[in-house]
């Protein structure tokens, strides 16, 4: 029997397909992966500590810098957590606009996922097409909030500004063109034989492992488990919309890709219903200038972010700043299964696994 020495390959922290600052230490035997150790913390910006020195409204921009690919989702979660703690009611119109923005964020995040997965596997074209369509969402964010990417649009008690008239036309035309875009992705990416060979049957995650590790979001649904917080524990006004939860069967990289592609369509369905039912009215309730939750109050609020269950745990001490703020970051927990799905595979599969787990390092390192 031929004896080979095991050796270590370091992927990252500077590597184009580690999504910024992820370091994977791969223990190799020839081309086979024996183990993959994930090193985190290269993007640790001490957001949770900074939160303790910021007032409640001041933390909103930091929240959007957690998950910068879908910046409306983390701010939505944070604002809803504070509102829940303070018992603040949000006007109807603001709730609907929040849903519209959150779902557009989810689409933009999934577009980046598809594009970055394609480029990680060597298909630059995929990225170009996905970013082309994402620009239209960025335009909508810019016309509503003034910022392209990190729009701190959510406010405690509502949203920052009402949408301009031009927004409706832009949103409708995006939704009208979406089926055509998906067809294009199917033709370019989904139907590509090389891509299928790279991700089909690769990085299979069993449903038991997924539950044991606390995996959430599209990664969990790719294993065939029907768990979406928008359905399981509806927050905001999500119980009013009709949408399906796309499920995978095998939990491999291919399923994780297909689930996200299907989720784009479901998000579009939600936006369409929200646009149809959008009422007139206020966009923000009157919230006291200084928010001072009573000492000892604490809250855990979770939303379905584009990566999974994004939770905020806030403890108040009677002052205008949180005593402690913890973020349950889905990317962090989802990344923990990278070693078990990479073991036994090839080196190239690690790249496919990182890409399809879709971690965003800003959120996982905080």
């Amino acid at each position, binding site marked *: 029997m031929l004896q080979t020495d095991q050796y270590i390959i370091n992927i990252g922290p*500077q590597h184009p397909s580690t999504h910024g600052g992820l370091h994977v230490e791969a223990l190799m035997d020839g081309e086979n992966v024996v183990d993959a150790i994930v090193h985190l913390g290269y993007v640790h910006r001490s957001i949770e500590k900074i939160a303790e020195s910021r007032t409640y409204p001041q933390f909103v921009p930091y929240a959007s810098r957690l998950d910068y690919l879908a910046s409306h989702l983390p701010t939505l979660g944070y604002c809803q957590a504070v509102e829940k703690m303070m018992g603040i009611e949000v006007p109807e119109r603001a709730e609907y606009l929040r849903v519209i923005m959150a779902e557009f964020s989810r689409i933009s995040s999934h577009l980046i996922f598809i594009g970055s997965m394609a480029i990680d596997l060597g298909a630059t074209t995929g990225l170009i097409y996905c970013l082309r369509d994402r620009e239209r969402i960025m335009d909508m964010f810019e016309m509503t909030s003034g910022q392209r990417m990190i729009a701190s649009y959510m406010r405690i008690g509502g949203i920052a500004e009402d949408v301009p008239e031009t927004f409706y036309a832009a949103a409708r035309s995006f939704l009208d063109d979406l089926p055509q875009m998906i067809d294009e992705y199917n033709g370019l990416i989904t139907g590509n034989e090389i891509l299928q060979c790279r991700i089909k049957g690769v990085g299979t995650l069993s449903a038991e492992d997924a539950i044991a590790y606390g995996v959430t979001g599209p990664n969990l649904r790719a294993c065939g488990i029907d768990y979406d917080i928008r359905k399981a524990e509806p927050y905001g006004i999500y119980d009013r919309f009709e949408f399906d939860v796309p499920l995978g069967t095998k939990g491999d990289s291919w399923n994780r890709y297909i689930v996200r592609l299907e989720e784009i369509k479901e998000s579009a369905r939600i936006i369409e219903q929200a646009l149809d039912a959008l009422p007139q009215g206020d966009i923000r309730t009157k919230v006291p200038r200084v928010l001072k939750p009573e000492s000892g109050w604490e809250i855990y609020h979770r939303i379905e972010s584009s990566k999974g269950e994004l939770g905020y745990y806030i403890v108040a001490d009677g002052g205008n700043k949180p005593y402690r703020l913890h973020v349950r970051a889905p990317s962090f927990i989802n990344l923990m299964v990278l070693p078990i799905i990479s073991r036994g595979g090839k080196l190239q599969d690690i790249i496919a696994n990182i890409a399809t787990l879709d971690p965003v390092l800003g959120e996982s390192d905080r």
Partner: protein
Amino acid sequence: MVLKQQADDDLEMMEKNGIIVTTLEKIWNWGRAHSFWPLSYGCNCCPIEMMAAGASRFDIARYGYEVFRASPRQADLLVVAGPITVKMAPAVQRIYEQMPSPKWVLAMGNCATSGGPFRDGYSVLPGADSLFKVDVFVPGCPPRPEALFHGLLELKQKVMGKK
């Protein structure tokens, strides 16, 4: 004075006849300034805008800066996009040292410029210039792709010796 006048007249006459007199350094810098090879490095929100700058709408290829390299050995421009954390600092330092000279550094975004919103934290360095010399700072959180282009064009002027 007279000699200088004479030399200038000679140069003008040669230029009219299609002869350009220059130094080799100037030609090289002209080439370098028109085709930076940026390193694809970044660790937060700014790289996403850098990706958008490279994609179809903004199209960094219009300026000739689209050759993003994955290896520092092949790059001559380090775009520091995103915060430099205490854990990342040795890696960035090493990336910078691995790049062959001549090399330039562009600090993209507030985090790389000054630490940005995370300056108060315990784990972010107050800007890329605490590690190495930075040529151009592009503020913004994150800067628009147009702002990145402006920064690159400023760097171009600098490399060509016009600033």
